[in-house]
């Protein structure tokens, strides 16, 4: 085998690996996401029973059975703070946004989310008093981020 042939063999193996790498890299890379973002504001005196406030995302506006329709929630706004920018990643679809008060510490809320969801007993209360806003769905399209600001008045 001449050195030219050996060189060609060595290069062929490596080129095959590089081509495989490039094709894989195009497939798995992260890309733009869809969701809803904005600001969650609070005004008035925080009740002691509310440990944090967050925007929750439901796939249907059935408030008495919200746990069964809970899709996601925003990072929480802590007592004493009046505003938090939020982003919730969502798949394309129709959703309802509701301002909720967490009745336990946010860390505890997150730690037990799975168990509470299974029980259908998630420790939050609906804070929104603007029912028309709750009932208005938000339509999310592919790679689209929709702006929604919401204010909670205690």
């Amino acid at each position, binding site marked *: 085998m001449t050195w030219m042939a050996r060189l060609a063999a060595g290069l062929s193996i490596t080129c095959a690996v590089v081509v495989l790498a490039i094709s894989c890299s195009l497939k*798995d890379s*992260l890309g733009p996401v869809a969701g809803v973002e904005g600001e969650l504001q609070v005004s008035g005196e925080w009740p002691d029973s509310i440990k944090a406030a967050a925007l929750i995302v439901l796939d249907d506006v059935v408030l008495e059975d919200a746990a069964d329709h809970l899709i996601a929630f925003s990072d929480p706004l802590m007592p004493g703070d009046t505003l938090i920018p939020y982003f919730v990643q969502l798949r394309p679809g129709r959703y309802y946004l509701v301002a909720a008060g967490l009745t336990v510490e946010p860390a505890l809320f997150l730690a037990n989310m799975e168990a509470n969801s299974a029980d259908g007993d998630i420790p939050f209360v609906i804070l929104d008093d603007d029912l028309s806003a709750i009932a208005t769905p938000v339509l999310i399209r592919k790679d689209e981020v929709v702006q929604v600001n919401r204010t909670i008045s205690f």
Partner: protein
Amino acid sequence: MEKLPHIRYLVFATFLYANAVAQNAATIVGHVTAAGSGESLIGANVSLIGTFYGAATDSEGNFLIKELPPGSYTLLVSMIGYRNVTVDSIIVRAGETLVQEVTMDRDVLKSPQIVVSAARFEQDIMEAPISVSVLGVRQIFDKAAFSLEEVVIDESGVTSVKGQLNIRGASGYTLGAGSRSLLLLDGVPLLGSAAGNIVWTVVPSSEIERVEIMKSAGSALYGSSAMGGVLNIITRNASASPENKLRIRLGRYSQPRFDQWRWRNDPGLVYTVEATHARPFGDHSGWLRLQRNSTPGFTELNWLNAWNLTGKLKLNFGSRYTAVLYANYYSENKGLESVWKSPAEPFEAPAICADDKSVGQKFNLNGFGNYIYSPRVVVKAKAAWYDVWWRNHGTNTDFSREQKYFSELQGAANWSSTLSTKAGVALERGWINARIFGVHNSTMVAAYLHARQKVGHWLVSLGARNEQYYVDGEYLDGALAPSLAVNWRRYDWLSLRSSVGGGFRVPTIAEMFSHSQLNVFKVEPNPDLKTEASVSFEAGGTMILSGLVFDQVRLDGAVFVNRFNQIIEPVPDNLGIIHFENITDARIAGQELSLSAVLPAERGLIKVAYTHLDPVILSLAGNVIDTLSYRYRHNLQNTLTLNFGAVAATVEYRYASRLEKTELFDTNPLTGQDRRVPLHLVNSGLAWNAGEWEVLLRIENLFQYYYVELERNMAAERLITFCLFYTF
């Protein structure tokens, strides 16, 4: 006071001995050349096997070993890019000077062949009792990396999670609060005593002679933090003639390839300017390097402005006394990255954190002195001082001041041509005053003993290290780590190795006393943490073949099992509060295979390395109950370098499988909120070497592959750099 006369006698006897040795001393002088070209080789290492005498060739390829007792010696000459040469049965007589010519054949793999980390003895890499990877100057240069981290993660078994080094998955990600991989600089520990984490920025990546990566438990040799492996950086000594180096690196991050992610109009300029002056003065030599580094970063808070002043002094007082002094001062002003604004704007920081920054300074001074008492006995003293200060500004107002002192006294003896021993004691004291830890101090005392015996084709290494720890003046814990390793080398082209060793790591002050808020998560202290321990087993082999498709092939394989007891990991409890806890037991088993092949007529080099890990948490009964977080199960690294005369083109591809488990943020399958993807990174480079001038064009992340190593943190964007090196 009564003991003083004895000390006087001892000093007088030592003087008489030294005087007698000097009068009867012999000398070896020689010249080292390259086979074929006849070119004199500068900087080749020359040593006498079984003794502690040695020298390096000067600017004309000459070497000199003096003050040598008469006798028969074996000369070993080594140099990166050349095959080791041994000259047996050199007989030197009292008062005589022997002249020895040495010719070295080129090594087409061009990687260093002598290592010191694997057994604390200088040895041929084929005789290393455990798996060791070695990076030489060329491999570091070709990366044009600002941080050494970017270079070492291309070695088999080595990965990084947001700057945290993982050798065979030992560390995972511990919020920067503890590492199971130890960083040594010229054999001296370079970890902070509080967080125990690697500080990459203080490593002078352009002044490194070689990097040795020891992949098995190193506690028996190096103590706590080395239970998952050791990275030993050996800095270069000054050249044999005056030399100046100027290095300029200019770069630019690309704009994100998705319009939605663009966050600035101009990505700005990444630059590094560095000047080094090296010179001999008399028998001594030294170098001084000043570096300025500035980057706007690839994310909003990834910016950095830094100054780095580094110097190294090597003092030679005859053949028997040498000393090295190394100093580094680093000052930085940088953005304080935490998490991204959102996955829709992954390169921006949350608005409230947009002005967060950190200002800090680091000072490191270390050195060692060697005294060759006789050809077969050497005493070495090491000392280091480490002082780090930083303060955060913005939403995070943490601050820290940390100081560490380290000293070690070591004696080594070659009892015969086959038996060597080494023993030492070490002391480390640390002080920390940090907002999230409080005020604490720590003390470590250690003693170790190692022996190496050659029996036929077998090399047996046996040793143990005992360490005792005190925190805030109270005894914390102690541990003993033994190790046994064998290497079998019947042929030049084949060596087999196997080792078993104990490891331990005492909890760091950060793990015991951290008290902070990380987003919605609270980190609370756990002063009751216990020392974690491990048992590591490894078996492997190295084969060097030629005459196949390639000019030369080096094949290395290993299987390993590391069993950890009471491993410390950050764990959120059912209140959502993170504590560092001793989580029962864990096991990381795996296999590693690497291949380096030189293309015919040295037209290029192919490197392939694959590591498979099985990182699991075990119940007390030994059953698998979960996966350890932040470990890549599969890791593959490929490099192809092609040479066209003075031009070399390189393509690198790195694959790591999707992280199976993370800790900080939940995923949500209903929304697709899970950013873990496999890594597919392609880098490329084009280098032109024109003697004094070298030019390098590098593209990192060529195809703009986007991934996260740590939740809510986008990894680096494509970076194009142009580097110019001028040596005069």
